[in-house]
């Protein structure tokens, strides 16, 4: 197992190298000149010499690979540069914004976790019952509703019509309930559908029949054996979605006026704030890859066969 984790951590470095190269390249081939964008931000109408001066100062005249090496070197020393927009160090900005989004995502993941497992299992066990049909309908609805619309709907119902929550509210858990629900619903809906299918296929396995023949109760078979066997694919997906949510929280954050990393990144993109974009992408990529490693480790605990396969003990 530890050998496997070590292998994955080595992979992490390769993936991060790829991610940084890609994001660096993509932001550099975009048509906007960052030196000019920066100059226009600090001076009303900058003279061409002034722009050139800034370009030299920012090191933008160097060849691309040199720029990348400089940037990655500073990253390794923990310096992601300064934001062109806020003038703060990028680290500082991210450290300010990330916790809010983390909190939001954590609560959303909590909703997902407590909903999809019981609903998926009951739906599968009572296949074609009224409950199952109802859940199927609700899940399709949940997947297809755009989250900004769902966000406004929630605000309208729970903050305007029935003022249980405030429209704009900061700094407490209550203020995160609505946004986290909006963030959770599409993911939870697709998880319910996938999990129901996985449970159904496991219910037809030989081990279920033999467990019945041994006299094991249906409840124990379902909640003990079938659940454990149905989890691995969804665990992988769960941690993948954690990454998606961190990166894609911008819509929800803007609807609920939350100051999180998603909105921060979005603002950076519109302002062509390259250091912030590269910094955010790097941080999100690290979280993404760490999540996928975590998913694999949990799956190995759930199904030890995976470990043995990875380590070549079993073929």
């Amino acid at each position, binding site marked *: 197992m530890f050998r496997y984790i070590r292998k994955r951590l080595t992979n992490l470095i390769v993936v991060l190298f790829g991610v940084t190269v890609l994001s660096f390249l993509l932001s550099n081939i975009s048509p906007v000149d960052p030196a000019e964008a920066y100059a226009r931000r600090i001076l009303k109408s900058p003279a061409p010499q002034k722009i050139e001066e800034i370009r030299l100062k920012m090191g933008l005249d160097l060849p691309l690979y040199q720029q990348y090496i400089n940037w990655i070197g500073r990253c390794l020393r923990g310096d992601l540069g300064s934001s062109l927009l806020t003038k703060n160090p990028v680290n500082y900005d991210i450290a300010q914004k990330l916790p809010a989004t983390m909190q939001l995502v954590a609560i959303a993941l909590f909703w997902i976790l407590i909903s999809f497992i019981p609903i998926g299992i009951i739906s599968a066990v009572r*296949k*074609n019952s009224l409950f199952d049909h109802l859940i199927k309908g609700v899940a399709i609805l949940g997947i297809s509703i755009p989250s900004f619309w769902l966000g406004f709907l929630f605000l309208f119902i729970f903050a305007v019509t029935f003022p249980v929550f405030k429209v704009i509210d900061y700094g407490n858990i209550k203020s995160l309930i609505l946004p986290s629900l909006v963030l959770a619903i599409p993911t939870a809906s697709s998880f319910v559908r996938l999990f129901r299918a996985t449970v159904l296929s496991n219910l037809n*396995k*030989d*081990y279920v*029949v*033999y*467990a*019945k*023949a*041994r*006299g*094991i*109760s*249906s409840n*124990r078979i379902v909640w*003990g*054996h079938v659940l*454990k*066997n149905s989890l691995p694919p969804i665990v992988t997906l769960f941690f993948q979605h954690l990454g998606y949510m961190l990166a894609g929280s911008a819509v929800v954050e803007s609807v609920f006026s939350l100051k999180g990393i998603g909105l921060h990144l979005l603002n950076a993109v519109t302002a062509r704030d390259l250091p912030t974009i590269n910094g955010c992408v790097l941080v999100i990529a690290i979280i993404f890859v760490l999540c996928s490693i975590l998913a694999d480790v949990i799956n190995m605990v*759930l*199904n*030890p*066969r995976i470990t*043995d396969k990875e380590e070549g003990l*079993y073929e």
Partner: protein
Amino acid sequence: MTELLKVSKLCIGLKPQTFPIVKNVSFALREGTSLAVVGESGSGKTITCKSIMQLLNPKTFQVSGSIRYRKTELLTMDEKGIRALCGSKIAMIVQNPMTAFDPTVKIGAQIVETLMAHQRISKRDAYASGILALQKMNLPRCEQLMDSYPYTLSGGMLQRIIIALSLIHEPDIIIADEATTSLDVKNQNMVLDELEKMKRNGIALLLVTHDFGVAAKLADNVIVMREGKIIERGTVYDIFESPREAYTKELLKASILKRGNCID
């Protein structure tokens, strides 16, 4: 000899149109005897056996008729009642030992679970009697086996564990559904020997097989099934010495060609 199991007029259909799979099947299993249900694949023999333990999905299968264990009707029994019987009074040996256990749970835990489903017993005691049951089957390094995952063991090993599990509650009836089919010859003989031992110890055997060799070795009575119907029945001598149906003769011939040494 009392009748342990009496199946009468059993009909099984596939829902929703109740397409018949098993038609009007009746047989009885008496104490200490063994009955072989022989037939080709798809003849309905496995389905018949599964219906005894209510292992068929009621949403897919329509079962009618009567299956009695001693004086109790099994077909109409509730889930709790039938699970109490399964694994204790009526035990099963399955066709494919490699897929019979939950792959993510250690053998020991699955044995303990089986014991605890039927008796008030602490986990520790259950574990100890699990080891004992495996030792009775002459399995090597039983403590280590208890701590293994099913996929690390061979089919023959797993089938022996299944046999050990089937005997753990001293059942009246053992249903062996193609118990030798997926094994190699050495393990087949091992399973046949164990089944013979069970028979000597007075356990009634219901053998489902497509192999007349198995029937010849173990069965007192034989029924031959084809397309969901019983087409011939009799004692093992009747069937082997003077089969009436052409189909039975054909099956016999196929079997003798395959393993000529079995009929002795």
